[in-house]
C-alpha cells in the first residue's frame, strides 16, 4: 500500500542534509516497528522516495516522502507511531494512503510556497512592511525578470517571471492571493522570533525549478536592498501538485481513504 507522509524540518535539523534525512526516516520506521516494503536482493532497501530535497539551512513545514507499506493502520495512528520515535524538530504533520495508480510525488510536484524571514538578531530594510509590499507589487508587474544562471560551462540570462506565481509581503496577504491556509494545525515551525518579510509561490519540480534564494537575491537587487544571505531564513510552507482545478497540496493529491 502506497502512502505519503508530510513532515516538518526545523531548528537544529536544518543542518541535516537530504540524504541524512532519508536515513533518519529509514531508521525511524524501524524504531516505530512499521512494516515497510523492501526491495529484493541481498541489500534490500526500504521503498521510500522524497519529493524534493531541501537545501541545508532551510526549514520547512511541508516536506514529503512517499513510502510503500505492508501494513495499514489509520493515518492518525500511523503518524503517532512515527512521531513517538522522532525528536521535536522533525515531526510528521500529515499521513495519507495513496491510490495504487499514484504518481511518485517527485514527478507530480509543480510548485512550492516559501516564506522568507529575517533571522532573530538580524535586520533588513525589507522589514519595513509598506516598502516591501510596494516593491513586491512592482516586481511582479515587470514584463521580464531576468537573472544570470551560471552553469559549469556557461552563463545564461534566464527569464524567471513565469515561474513566480505569487508574491506578497506578509503571510496574511499571501494567504489571500494564493488561496492557502497556513496557520491552521498549530502554526508554523518557524522560529517565532523570525520576522516574515516575503512570501512567494514558485514553480518547482522536474520541468521548471525556481530556487527561493535566487528570487530573493533578484528581489533585493530590484528593491535596491543589499543582499546578505546570512540575514534571511528561507522556509518552505507547502508543496503542490496540479489538477484540472489548480494547485493541490501534496498531502491531498492522489490521496485515498481506506
Amino acid at each position, binding site marked *: 500500500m502506497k502512502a505519503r507522509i508530510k513532515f516538518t524540518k526545523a531548528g537544529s535539523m536544518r*543542518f541535516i542534509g537530504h540524504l541524512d534525512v532519508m536515513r533518519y526516516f529509514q531508521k525511524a520506521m524501524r524504531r516505530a516497528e512499521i512494516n515497510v516494503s523492501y526491495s529484493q536482493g541481498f541489500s534490500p532497501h526500504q521503498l521510500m522516495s522524497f519529493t524534493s530535497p531541501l537545501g541545508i539551512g532551510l526549514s520547512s513545514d511541508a516536506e514529503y516522502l512517499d513510502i510503500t507499506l505492508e501494513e495499514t493502520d489509520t493515518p492518525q495512528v500511523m503518524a503517532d507511531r512515527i512521531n513517538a520515535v522522532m525528536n521535536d524538530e522533525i515531526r510528521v504533520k500529515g499521513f495519507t494512503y495513496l491510490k495504487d495508480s499514484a504518481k511518485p510525488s517527485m514527478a507530480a510536484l509543480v510548485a512550492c510556497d516559501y516564506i522568507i524571514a529575517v533571522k532573530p538578531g538580524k535586520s533588513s530594510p525589507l522589514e519595513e512592511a509598506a516598502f516591501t509590499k510596494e516593491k513586491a507589487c512592482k516586481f511582479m508587474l515587470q514584463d521580464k525578470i531576468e537573472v544570470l544562471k551560471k552553469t559549469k560551462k556557461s552563463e545564461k540570462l534566464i527569464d524567471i517571471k513565469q515561474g513566480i506565481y505569487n508574491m506578497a509581503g506578509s503571510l496574511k496577504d499571501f494567504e489571500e492571493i494564493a488561496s492557502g491556509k497556513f496557520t491552521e494545525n498549530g502554526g508554523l515551525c518557524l522560529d*517565532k522570533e523570525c520576522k516574515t518579510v516575503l512570501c512567494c509561490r514558485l514553480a518547482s519540480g522536474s520541468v521548471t525549478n525556481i530556487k527561493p534564494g535566487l528570487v530573493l537575491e533578484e528581489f533585493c537587487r530590484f528593491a535596491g536592498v543589499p543582499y546578505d544571505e546570512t540575514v534571511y531564513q528561507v522556509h518552505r510552507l507547502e508543496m503542490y501538485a496540479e489538477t484540472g482545478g489548480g494547485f493541490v497540496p501534496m498531502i491531498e493529491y492522489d490521496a485515498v481513504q481506506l
Partner: protein
Amino acid sequence: MDIYMRKLALSDEILLSVEKPARYIGGEINMAVKNLADVDIRFCMCFPDVYEIGMSHLGIQIIYDMLNLRDDIYCERVYSPWTDLDKILRDKNIPLFALESQQPVKDFDFLGITLQYEMCYTNILQVLDLSGITLDAADRKEGEPFVIGGGPCAYNPEPIADFFDMFYIGEGETVYYELMDRYKEWKASGKGRKEFLKIAAKLPGIYVPQFYQPVYNKDGTLAEFKPLVPEAPAKVVKQVECSLSETYYPEKPLVPYIKVTQDRVVLEIQRGCIRGCRFCQAGMLYRPIRPRSLSFLKQRAKEMLKSTGHEEITLSSLSSSDYKDLKELVYWLIDEFKDQGINISLPSLRIDEFALDVMSKVQDVRKSSLTFAPEAGTQRLRNVINKGLTEDDILNGAMEAFKGGWNRVKLYFMLGLPGETYNDIEGIAVLSDQIARQYYTIPKEERNGRVNIVTSTSIFVPKPFTPFQWSPMDTKEQARQKRDFLLSKVREQLNAKSIKYNCHDADVSELEGVFARGDRKLCNVIRQAYESGCIYDAWTEYFQPDKWEQAFKDNNADMEFYLRRERAEDELFPWDFIDIGVTKKFLLDEYHNSQAETVTPNCRRQCSGCGAAKFQCGVCVENRDATVPLDLGN
C-alpha cells in the same frame, strides 16, 4: 505550535560555513537529556578525533550509558572539531563545547579522553586548548576540569602524562562510580585540587602521573619510577570486569544523523583472547578471555535494534571464532532478523563449514570477501609470532569457499616482524599466488569469473606488554625496501594479475612506534608539534613529518632511541609500574620462545601460567578442577 528549539553553541552562519554541520549540533536519537540544576557531577567524554570516527567507538557509549544511569551525573560528549571549525573557534574565541548542552567543556567537573591510538595525541592538546583548559596538569587552577584518560594507550600513558590529571587503567565498568562518589565528597569538603588527586590515587586502577618521578640513566633509559606520595602505589593494577553478563552495556545507543564509520549495532560478545599471538597488545592487555552469556547478548541485540532502528548488527571481539556459542548466536541472529531486512555483518571468522554456511546466508558471495590474517608469509615466521594459522588451513578454507561461489580474498600481513628474512617476505607473494592457483583448479564452468586477491601489509610496531616489547623496529628505509621487494615478488608470480598489493604508510608507523614505547620526555615533543600546527596526524593528508622531525630535534629527543634499540632484558620500561596480570617474566619467556621458533598453545589447550589467573575469572577458571591451585605465573 511551540516546538522545543535547542539553543546551539554555534551561529547559523558558522554552521553553514563548515563541512557537515551535523557534527556539532548533538540532539541525536537516544541522547541523554538532563536538567543541569539537578545533577551534582558533569562529566564530558571525549574522543579526540572527528565526530564520525568518535561516534563509532563502543567504549564511549558504554561509559556514557553507565554514567547517565546515575541521576546525579550528566555525561555529555565532545569530539575534535574538524580543521575548518578549529580555525573559526580560534578566530572568534568560541570555547569548545559539549554536544548535549552546547555548553563550554571548561565548566565540566571531568573531561574524560579515550586513547585508542597514538596518532591522536596532538588532537588531545587541540581539545584542551580549544576548551581553554591549561595544557599542563600540574599548572591547572582550582575549578578547571579534572582530565582523565583511558583506553588501550593508557597502558603506556607516559608520552602524554604531563597533560592528564589521572589515567584510568583498564576496563571502565568497575571503578568509575566509586571515583564519582569520592569526587562528590571532596567537592563538598572544599579542599584543593591536589587533595582530590591523592584521594583518586588510592583507588585501584587510577594512576596520577604528578605523584611519580621518572629518573633516567645517562643512556636515557629509565633508572627508577619513584612514587612521591604515600597515596601513590608502586604498582597500579589494571581493572578487569569479571562479570561481563552482569554489567553495563547500552540498550539505547546514540543514533547519529550523519553516516559514521560504524553505522550499526555493535555487540561485544567477549573480551580478551586465548591465542597469545606475540605481536598483539590487545590479546595480552585484555586477558583473561571472558565471554558474555548468550541470553545477555540476545536480549541486548533485540533492545539495541529496537531502540536505534539500525539496519545492520555486527559482533565485536578479538577472535570471534573462539566464542563458544558463536554458532548458536549467529544462527539465532539470522533467524530472528534476516527477514526484517537487517543485515548481519560477520566479524573475521576462521574459515570452516560453519563460517561458509553463515557467510553465504548473510552476504552476496559474489560481492563479499573471504578474509585471512596469516600476518607472516611462512610457517616458520608464523611460529615466531605464535600465529597458529597453517598453509593447509588457508588453502583448504579458501578452496571450500571457492567451491561455494566466493572469488574474492583479502589477506593481511605485517612487514618488519622480529626475525623476518627476505624469504619470509617472498612467502607472502607465494602464498597469495598459491591461493589463486587453488582457485584455478576449479573447472572453468564451475568458476565465477576471475579470482581477486587483495594482499595488504602493515608495518609491525612493537608494543608495550607484548613479548616483542624488547624488539627493535625496522627503519623507514628498511620498510620501503621490503615493500618494494614484495611488490616485485608479487609481480613475478604466475597469477600476478589476480593479486593486488597494498601497503601502509611508513612515516606514520614510525611515529606510532615512538609513542607506543615512549617515555615522559616526549611530552615536550608532542606539545611543540601541536604548537607548530600538527593535528589530525592519523589522517595522511594532514600528517606533517617535517614538523615532527623538528619537534624531536628541538627537544633533544631521538626517534632512533625509542625505535631501534633491542632492549636489555632487565631494562626498566616506562610502563612497568602497571600490573596487567600477565607477568614480565612470561612476556620475556615468550620472547625467547619466539627466537626459538616454538609455539605456545592457546589458553584452552593448556594454561601457560601467564599470570592473568590472578584475576580469577574467565578462561582461567573455566571448567577448572578447584583442587588444583591456579598458576599465577610467579
